[in-house]
């Protein structure tokens, strides 16, 4: 790999821009292909497919074996509710490779002291969602169990192809939530996308343990999506 190629990939990563490195495995020749930009690179179609599936691999092109290495921007996790559970969850998710944003309009919760180094937005959740533009590589979890905060976030999330939606709350709270979302016009199939009560059932008690359960469930949905 050339130093210039390395520097360009690092610049693309800093700019959160997807890039695919194509390397001829016989000659070592390399070039960068940008899957989300127009172009006439003969490998553009295959680079686009690789980026969409987040799957690197070898392709045959003009009799040559070319390795396509996908450098996608990090997965994202949006946490609604700067509550106690959000503190360990933000740190664990960052270690797992997620860019984390915490959303909470209540300034006392969303303080720098409680979330050092974390991107915190104090807009209302629906406004924050519009800014963040969640996509298929984004997970969203609501933790306030206050309908005024959770519901607007869930209503936005359910209209988007995000790969995970989780909502904290007991079965009773969750049933009440589903009733409200149903009244708002969402179908049973829509609402089945919400993981609630949130997290894998591992008997988690402490905020950190609940964060483990939530991150485990997010990982499961990412790596073993329901068919």
């Amino acid at each position: 790999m050339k130093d210039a190629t390395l520097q360009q990939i690092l610049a693309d990563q800093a700019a959160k821009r997807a890039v695919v490195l194509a390397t001829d495995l016989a000659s070592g020749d390399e070039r960068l292909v940008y899957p989300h930009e127009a172009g006439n690179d003969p490998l553009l179609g295959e680079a686009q497919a690789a980026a969409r599936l987040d799957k690197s691999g070898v392709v045959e092109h003009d009799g040559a074996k070319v390795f396509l290495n996908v450098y996608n921007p990090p997965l994202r996790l949006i946490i609604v509710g700067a509550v106690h559970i959000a503190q360990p969850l933000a740190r664990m998710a960052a270690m797992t490779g997620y860019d984390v944003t915490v959303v909470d309009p209540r300034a006392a919760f969303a303080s720098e002291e409680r979330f050092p180094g974390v991107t915190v937005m104090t807009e209302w959740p629906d406004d924050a969602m519009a800014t963040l533009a969640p996509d298929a590589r984004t997970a969203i979890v609501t933790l306030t169990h206050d309908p005024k905060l959770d519901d607007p976030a869930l209503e936005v999330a359910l209209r988007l192809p995000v790969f995970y939606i989780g909502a904290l709350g007991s079965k009773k709270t969750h049933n009440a939530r589903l009733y409200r979302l149903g009244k708002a016009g969402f179908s049973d199939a829509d609402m089945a996308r919400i993981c609630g009560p949130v997290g894998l059932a591992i008997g988690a008690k402490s905020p950190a343990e609940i964060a483990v359960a939530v991150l485990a469930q997010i990982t499961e949905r990412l790596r073993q999506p329901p068919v």
Partner: protein
Amino acid sequence: MTAEADNVLEQIAAWRKEGKGVALATVVTTWGSSPRPVGSQLAVDNSGKFVGSVSGGCIEGAVVEEALAAIKDGETRFLDFGVTNEQAWEVGLACGGKVQVFVERVA
């Protein structure tokens, strides 16, 4: 909070800035059970320090040796590891999988 995983490329950039020779090893193909997916990377500097991984630790030693040779001669290398290849390579994968690793100098 920014994602922390996989800073192999950043480590390479730091080593290069210090003027070190560096090689990069990348998993390009896997068959069967393999501990690290295609695209996983390991970087080696000219003193043998390494970051990242291309397996669960089974083949790193052999890959580092080849990477050091690549830093010296600048040639790319294509390495095959697997249980069926024990004659070709001293190390195999206990898990029964196979991996191919591409090794190149960063320059």
